[in-house]
């Protein structure tokens, strides 16, 4: 049976409501007053974009919401989406000293949303490009977080910037690939519009290599930025994979973000293959859109899952099922539609997964969502840019300080450079690349962000997490040693 939408509009909207709704002004004030205004604060060091978090929170507490948003957006042009989608538990909030003091960190993400909502809702522009351009231009390939971070910084440095993207809207995964209950696509699209008001030009429905050639770009622009992210889901390599109800989890999420919620088809019995954060997004949203059961199938155990623990908790709270140490061997169909999965138990020895002989069984499913990682676009990149060096994991090689690739006029950032990390890493890398481009084109180095809350820090007031972000799992690992 082909899958169908299962819920009416009202139920779907209620189920997909934001899990972290906006603060009221008073809630924000109370939360902001919990911040200690640390000197040389760990949260800044944990933020890949190096936002001066104590400063922006102090400004909320002081009733200076516009200034607060200015502090945020100056460091991270996607501050509104990062406020919603950042895994703050392993970044700023995980490093917050109030977590040590009270067992509960300052809710930095929600406060960041409070401040950025203020400027978006009131149409206040806090970022500005110079009235006079510097005469140089840069082509940005990909309108995702990395490309936007690069484009916004370049525009503020006086460059003419054109962004090319094959999709009809900008924002990349922020627009098309985030769980709906974390962020609505409109937020991402508003951010793209704000960057457009800095003078950045966007050319949508334009795939590089198909609709415009790299040679043309190299002729028309002084430098190129590559921010094309990752490709489609990895192949499962099992029989039945091409049946119509075997769907890339990111495609399923894109349906949710591009159609009315009541028009999104979903199975009654959903299997999600993989156990990363995308798998969690798929299992929770399929459940919230009306699936009777939605089950994660993962070949390793709970302790090995790549998903963050708070994401795992969310999926459990949503009633998701989990089949650990289980591997799909075949997708079984009937009349051209998915009917079941043939599964087997696995065991892990010395880190290697093997199928337990004789453990096979058949479990009925009508929708299979693949969340087993995305492919690297190695073929595309090497055909577009002959001579571009990739590492053995398929990532584009680059200088981590400037994001310059092996081709001097080509810079890179985001998932295609780092192999797949957070939105906040991508926007930071895009910005870093913009500075690299600026230096390469003779514009000199741009210092900063200079953070008022760190003025007088013994190692200088520049840098923080922008140069070398810390992450809480790494901190915890270091502590346990």
């Amino acid at each position: 049976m082909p899958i169908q939408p299962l819920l009416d509009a009202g139920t779907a909207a209620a189920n997909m409501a934001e899990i972290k709704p906006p603060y009221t002004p008073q809630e924000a004030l109370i939360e902001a007053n919990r911040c200690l205004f640390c000197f040389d604060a760990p949260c800044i060091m944990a933020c890949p974009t190096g936002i001066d978090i104590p400063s922006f929170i102090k400004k909320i507490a002081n009733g200076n919401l516009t200034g607060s948003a200015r502090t945020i957006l100056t460091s991270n042009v996607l501050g509104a989406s990062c406020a919603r989608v950042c895994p703050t538990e392993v970044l700023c909030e995980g490093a917050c000293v109030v977590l040590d003091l009270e067992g509960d960190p300052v809710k930095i993400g929600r406060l960041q949303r409070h401040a950025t909502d203020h400027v978006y809702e009131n149409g206040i522009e806090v970022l500005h490009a110079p009235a006079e351009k510097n005469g140089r231009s840069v082509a940005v390939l990909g309108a995702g977080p990395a490309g936007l971070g690069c484009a916004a910084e370049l525009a503020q440095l006086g460059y003419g910037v054109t962004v090319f993207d094959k999709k009809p809207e900008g924002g990349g995964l922020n627009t098309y690939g985030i769980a709906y209950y974390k962020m609505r696509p409109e937020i991402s699209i508003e951010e793209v519009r704000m960057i457009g008001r800095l003078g950045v030009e966007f050319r949508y429905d334009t795939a590089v290599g198909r609709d415009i050639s790299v040679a043309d770009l190299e002729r028309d622009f002084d430098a190129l930025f590559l921010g094309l992210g990752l490709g489609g889901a990895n192949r499962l390599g099992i029989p039945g994979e091409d049946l119509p109800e075997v769907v890339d989890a990111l495609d399923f999420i894109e349906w949710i973000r591009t159609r009315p919620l009541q028009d999104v088809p979903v199975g009654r019995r959903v299997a999600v293959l993989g156990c990363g954060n995308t798998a969690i997004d798929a299992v929770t949203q399929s459940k919230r859109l009306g699936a009777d059961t939605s089950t994660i199938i993962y070949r390793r155990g709970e302790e090995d899952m790549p998903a963050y623990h708070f994401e795992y908790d969310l999926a459990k709270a949503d009633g998701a099922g989990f089949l650990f140490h289980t591997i799909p061997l075949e997708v079984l169909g009937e009349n051209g539609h998915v009917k079941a999965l043939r599964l087997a138990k696995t065991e892990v020895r010395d880190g290697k997964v093997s199928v337990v002989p004789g453990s096979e069984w058949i479990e009925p499913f009508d929708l299979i969502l693949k969340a087993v990682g995305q492919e690297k676009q190695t073929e595309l990149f090497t055909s577009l840019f002959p001579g571009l060096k990739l590492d053995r994991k398929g990532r584009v090689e680059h200088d981590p300080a400037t994001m310059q690739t092996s081709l001097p006029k080509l810079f890179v950032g985001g998932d295609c450079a780092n192999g797949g990390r957070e939105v906040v890493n991508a926007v930071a890398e895009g910005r870093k690349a913009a500075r690299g481009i600026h230096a390469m084109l003779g514009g000199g180095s741009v210092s900063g962000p200079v953070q008022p809350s760190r003025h007088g820090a013994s190692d200088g007031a520049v840098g923080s997490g922008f140069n070398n972000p810390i992450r809480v799992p790494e901190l915890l690992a270091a502590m346990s040693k």
Partner: protein
Amino acid sequence: MADLSINFAGIKSPNPFWVASAPPSNSAYQAHRAFEAGWGGVVWKTIGDPIVNVSSRYSALNLAGERMVGFNNIELISDRAPETNFREIREVKERWPNHAVIASLMVDTRERWHEFVKRSADCGADGIELNFGCPHGMCERGMGSAVGQNPDVAETIVGWVMEAAEIPVIVKLTPNITNVVYAARAAKRAGADAISLINTINSITNVNLDTLTPEPFVAGLSTHGGYCGPAVKPIALNMVQSCAADPEVNLPISGIGGITTWRDAAEFIALGSLSVQVCTAIMHYGFRIVEDMAEGLSDYLDSKGYKSVAEFSGASVQRLSDWKYLDLHYKRVARIDYEKCIGCNLCYIACEDGAHQCIDLVDSAPYGLGPGRVPGKPVPKVREEDCVGCNLCSLVCPVDNCITMTTIETGREKFSWDDYQTRLAAGQMQPIPAHP
């Protein structure tokens, strides 16, 4: 169990907690509620010739989300007729014979003072409080703080009152004066039985930045108000102790000013009060707060071995002296407990920018991962040889008992500024070199 009852200049009260003369003591209804809740006394809202009030009367100072840390009012004395107030005092005393009811009075002429003093005694009040402190409205008519700010005038009027008084008289002092002790001495000279302080402090709490008019807003204008609440406690404690320590005053003191908890009350009593009066905390939370006040004070007195409030009263008065008698050889330094430190480094920046530059940020390597859990994040370390013991770092530290001010035994005998000047004059020592 310690005895909480007091005999305040002849006014007997089951405990030292009195409702101050203010909106909470405006009526018999409120007095009944106060006594039911456990208050020992009520100082009636000031009785005088009936006045007319404005609409919008209070404003507040909020701080970092905390409401009413300071409170301001432009309300005048009782707007009820004197006969109503005196009749209700009689009713309250009939129902609560063992509780203290004190009539607060404010009139102008000698004859009126005589009349009101007499009517207070006639209605059964246990005492009288003279309102020489109200800093708004009434002072424009030559009453309230206009009296309290001029010790000669105050002495004259207390004299009029004493001519007619058959019950104890308390003079309530204004803090809006250069040295409150002079006003207290004037009360003493005129024969008053006790003093109470402080009344409210002249204030403007805030300006509304949209209307540009301060609050409380009255048809486009505001006026200077009277400030009270937790924020004024340090000012009140200073004035209470000054009066308690002055040998010429030597009167029972009813302490007033920001008292909210049993701790506040205990501090006022330690600095020389015998009773304490509360208003803002009642206006914020209601009469019920007295339960914790009485319980907390009683437990505290028991824990310290005091048998009564009277025995404890004034225990800290002699723990203050003039600056010139403080020991210049005493030394304390800040010590950081790295087990408790969370790595906010507020101590560092406070010392570096705000005080005496005695804390370094040092390599965290010897501290393992270090406070704040960030690899390589520098750790604050006090240079004890340079630390002046100012306390600032321990005050800004958000973690209890993380920075401890520790006494350093110098082995040097006590040496005060007074000693220094004496020995210099006697040629027994050279001047101490100035700090570099």
